[in-house]
Structures are given as structure tokens and as C-alpha cells.
């Protein structure tokens, strides 16, 4: 094993919870984060909260980013937080992006979603936010 000092890349899971079939934004984000030096695990469409939490656990990610456009965010996103925390992933940053009304953003943050990125957010902004807030010193 090499003992070279290098900063390990931040690992991000990008998931599409629920039933909406629009993953263009999620794919653009995955690609953009790759170019920002993140290791991105993309899980594809139509994921249940359980599938997302299971993947986050096995992949030991620093960040879970969920893209949702269906309007089912109140039903799905807090459940992912609950499942992740229930499995001991206390320090995993969980964020969301998509079309979410301001009133719901407040509720989601109260439920443990760290940040909600609305339309027009640049990939640079998201990358900066992840770098600043993801757990870095591990173990």
C-alpha cells in the first residue's frame, strides 16, 4: 500500500428518488462534479428511499445528492434522511435539487436535508457547497 500523501476525492451518490423519468439534470450534475474532481456514483432512475440508503451505506459516500422533479419530495426525501441516520450514517451530507416550493424547503431542512438547490444553481456552486460541508477528516 502506498503511503503517498494525497487528498482522497469526495465520494458523492447522485440518485433520482421516485417516479419521475427526467434525469437530464442529474446526469449533467454527475458529469460536472466529475470534472470538479469528485467521485460520483450514479444510481439511475426510480429509486426508493431504501435503495438510496442501501447504496449510500455500501458505497460509504460523503454526500448523497437527490434530484427530484415529481413533487413527491416531502414523501421521499425525509425518509432517506431517516434511513441513513438510522444506519449510523450521521455525518453524511444529504442535499437535494429540483423544483421545490420555498415553503417545503423550510420543512425539508428541518427534516435534515442540508441544502436544496433550485433551478439556475451552477455546478460550481454545488461543488463548492459539497467541498465546504462534506465530512473530510474520516476515521
Amino acid at each position, binding site marked *: 500500500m502506498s503511503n*503517498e500523501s494525497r487528498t482522497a476525492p469526495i465520494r458523492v451518490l447522485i440518485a433520482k428518488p421516485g417516479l419521475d423519468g427526467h434525469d437530464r439534470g442529474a446526469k449533467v450534475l454527475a458529469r460536472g462534479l*466529475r470534472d470538479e*474532481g469528485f*467521485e460520483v456514483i450514479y444510481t439511475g432512475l426510480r429509486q426508493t428511499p431504501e435503495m438510496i440508503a442501501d447504496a449510500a451505506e*455500501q458505497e460509504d459516500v460523503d454526500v448523497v445528492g437527490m434530484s427530484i422533479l415529481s413533487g413527491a419530495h416531502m414523501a421521499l426525501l425525509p425518509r432517506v434522511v431517516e434511513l441513513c441516520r438510522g444506519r449510523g450514517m450521521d455525518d453524511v451530507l444529504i442535499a437535494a435539487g429540483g423544483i421545490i416550493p420555498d415553503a417545503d424547503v423550510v420543512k425539508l431542512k428541518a427534516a435534515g436535508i442540508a441544502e436544496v438547490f433550485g433551478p439556475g444553481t451552477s455546478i460550481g456552486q454545488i461543488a463548492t457547497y459539497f467541498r465546504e460541508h462534506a465530512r473530510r477528516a474520516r476515521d
Partner: protein
Amino acid sequence: MTELLAELASGERRPLARLLTRIENGDPSLRPVIPGLFRASKGAHLVGVTGPPGSGKSTLVNALIAGWRRAGKRVGILAVDPSSPYTGGAIMGDRIRMMEHAADRDVFMRSMASRGELGGLAGTTWLAVAALDAAGYDPIVIETVGAGQSEVEIARLAETTVVVEVPEMGDEVQAIKAGLLEVADIIAVNKADRPGADRTARQLRAMLSTAGGRVTRKPPPILLTTATSGEGVVALAEAIEKHRSQAREPAGARERARNQIRRALADLSHSRASGKPGWDEAVEAVAGHELDPLTAAEQLLP
């Protein structure tokens, strides 16, 4: 150490996931546990699956997992994707095809970025495999894109290497080029519902069966599979199982051990030499063509 092993053996996913991260990151605090971890591996069947991008490797692995699960086996998967040499970033999408097994507690899947050559994943794969093995997963699949030297190297760690091809990939000369096909213990011509599958299999068979000269190994079996429908997957699983005993012969084990030691030597000498005074000067001198790389290496060798 015993604590770590007990945690792994408990079947809990989180300690294993955490350990894999430390292995990937080359965490120096792991050093003392490496010997025990390696000894604790129980001899899981290590299956490499490799092939060109888009050949259907992940879908095929997904179909194999379903069969192994029916047989009551706990399956570990390491899916390796390349890191960008420019940014260090990576996109790993192999989970997309395997999400149906995500909630199965007896399937553990981890995506790993290759993280460049020296000190990258190729140098630590054996340790990641040992961790999955110690956690009771058997078989363990390593899936890589068969595109470069490091992927061939990862494939060489496997006891049984399945090379996945697709119909009409190229002319017959592609099949006789050195590289990927030479490491194949089994060849799966996937997407066999497409036209030309039989012809591709026939061509591969003809090319590989005429091997002579210094080639001593038997030509690999060539199987037709359609991963999306499951056609041919049972036969592939049988061929993998059949190859297991063959792979366990002492000559094969020794060859894999040689590769592992060779890799560890390269990583070790590099990491020791790159910390030494004189490294920067050597880099300058070689960049300026004043010194050749071989002499530089001899001077730096610990």
C-alpha cells in the same frame, strides 16, 4: 485487529464499507492489520469480468448475481471505473444495472475509481478483495472496463477471468491482437440476440484454437449470452464454477502471487524513493534529458 475481523464477520455492511474506504485511501493506520486481514481471507472464488465499454458487463454480472443468490451464495462485487487523469474525478454507473440487488443484505457492491497508476486501485485491489472475503462473501466479482494496462492487471488478480465481447466488434485481427483475450479463461459473446453473434463466436473460436508456439494454455470456452433475457447465463455460471478448481492448481496460485508481489514491490519502491532527498533533482534531470529514467531509478532505489 480481532475487533475488526469480528465486525467484518458480523455481516454488518457499515464496518466493511468503512474499511474499503480506508483501503482505497491508502490509510497508513491500516498497515498493522494487513497481515491479519490477508490471513483471514477464506479463499473466496475471485471472478474477474472485463470487456469493452458497453459490452454489457454490469447487466451480465447482475444476471449472474441472481443465479448465485438462488444457490444461497453471498456475493461481493467491486466495480472499477477509470478516474480522470486530469481532475481525479470519476463517474461510476455500474449500480444502475444492479439496483435490484441493492436491498439484498447478502449482496455487497462497491464502486471504485481506479485513481491512477501507482498507489491507485490496482495496488490495493487484493486488499479490498481480502476484506470482502473476510466478511464472508464468496464469490467476489471484480468488474473492470477492459481498456488499459491497469485493468488487465486487475483482471490478472482474478482466479477466473471472463472477457465479455459483443457481436461484430471488429474484424478477425482484433481477436488475435495481444491483450484482453489472452487473459480470458472464459469468453462470453454477450448481446447474442443481435445478428452476427454466431459468426463472432465462430471467428473467436477459430482464432483462439489455432494458438501454438509458446502458448500452452487451452483455448477458453466461448459462450453466447443475452444478459437482458438471461439466455446462456446458467451455462456461463457453470463454466465459471468449473474453472474454479482449475484455477486452484498450484501453478495458477503461484502466478497470481507473483503478480501481487511484483505490484507491491513497484508501489513500495516508488513510495520510498519519492520521499527521499534527490527525488526532485532526479525528476528535473530526467525532464531535462540529462539523466535517463533507468539510472535515476537505480540511484533512488532504497
